[in-house]
């Protein structure tokens, strides 16, 4: 305990390397934004495939979702990293990270979106059919927004978890925020201060992401805007 009191936390060396932190932060944000979009597309496609009346796409989507949801992201990223290179593809670490994160979050989004689509009342689907809409049109014009509105909080949490999980890509030498921290602490010999700073930045990023999703929700769900609440 005495040593704790003697020891003073010194952040000057870390804050002096703010440029590195900023670069890392920028890459973390980029990774998050890109994979939120790609993951959402893949996830929604898989949710629709899983609900399809055709056996094959439903099974493929189910296997994909279960495989990804029951293995750690760290192992997934290694499999993708070494799998792609053994197939002869030469991708940069950032590209591999984007692919792995997309595959990962796609599976989680698929489960969430499926729950959303399942929550749409049967009458809505029947009404869409009676109006002569095709299945695709029914999903697009009738089901998508109300489904998203219902599962929007889970979707938001999942995307924040995705942003935090992007820290794991530092393990394949992607130079995002955590990798920047690893580098800074090896230069300054101040690991405690460095990782505290990083933790605060991640905290700020997740709050910012939450705020961004809240604003987006206000924008795309008019009902929420009018009522000021969820449904």
């Amino acid at each position, binding site marked *: 305990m005495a*040593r*704790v009191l003697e*020891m003073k936390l010194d952040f000057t060396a870390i804050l002096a390397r703010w440029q590195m932190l900023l670069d890392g932060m920028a890459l973390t944000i980029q990774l998050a934004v890109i994979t939120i979009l790609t993951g959402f597309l893949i996830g929604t496609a898989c949710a629709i495939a899983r609900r399809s009346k055709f056996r094959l796409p439903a099974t493929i989507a189910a296997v994909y979702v*279960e*495989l990804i*949801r*029951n*293995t*750690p*992201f*760290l*192992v*997934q990223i*290694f*499999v993708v*990293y*070494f*799998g792609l290179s*053994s197939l002869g593809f030469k991708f940069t670490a950032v590209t591999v990270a984007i692919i792995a994160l997309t595959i990962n979050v796609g599976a989680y989004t698929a489960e969430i979106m499926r729950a959303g689509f399942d929550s749409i009342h049967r009458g809505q689907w029947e009404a869409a059919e009676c109006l002569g809409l095709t299945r695709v049109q029914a999903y697009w014009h009738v089901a998508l927004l109300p489904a998203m509105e219902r599962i929007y909080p889970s979707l938001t949490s999942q995307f*924040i978890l995705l942003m*935090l*999980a992007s*820290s*794991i890509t*530092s*393990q394949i030498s992607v130079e995002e925020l*955590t990798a920047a*921290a*690893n580098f800074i*602490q090896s230069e300054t010999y*101040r*690991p*405690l*201060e460095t*990782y*505290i700073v*990083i*933790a605060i930045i*991640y*905290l700020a990023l*997740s*709050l910012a992401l939450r705020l961004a999703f809240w604003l987006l929700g206000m924008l795309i769900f008019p009902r929420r805007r009018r009522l000021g609440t969820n449904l």
Partner: protein
Amino acid sequence: MNNAINATHLTFLLTGAFWTLVLSLMAFVGGGVVGLVIALGRTSPVRFLRILSGGYVQIVQGTPLLVILFVVYFGLPTVGYSLSPMLAAGLSLTIYVSAYLGEIWRGCLEAVPKAQWEAAECLALSKTQRMVKVILPQAVRIATPPTVGFSVQIIKNTSLASVVGFVELARAGQLINNSIFQPFSIYMIVALLYFCMCFPISVFSRRLERTGASRLKAAETAVSA
């Protein structure tokens, strides 16, 4: 040197899987104990406790587990607390799990119908009696499926302990890879082993959810009938 994966490698991986389970259990027990305190704090009538536990949850859930692990493993030694990789991983996971379980269990405590709280109060039970004899038994039943589901997350997240050199399943895979360099096949086997640990639990949790939902429905129809 032989570059094929042999039985020794598989035994090594299985030993790694064993340590993954040990670490998961540590995290679950540690995180469960702290998580219960957090859940009680979050639902406490004392405002200060609510803010304190709420802040803890916000901070932990807004930080990657990897960074928590680095703070504990690399940061604490500079202020005089050196931890072995296993203890560091166990402590980080405990912190991480407690925030999530605390939040899950808070939801479960709040899901116990208000009438039950009031009824217990009307029966002149003390606050402790009310919690232990009336609320917790019902909350435990509600909490079982999501808790089992979350234990899958715990098992998966123990893989991060490999980063600080604790030899669990993922680290065992890395070590074998260093000697025979067959990354793709090794990590596929590692993934398969993780899947074998997690998938049964996922299925079990889903089954619990279904029976729980149907039991709830049956209770509702019984009441309305």
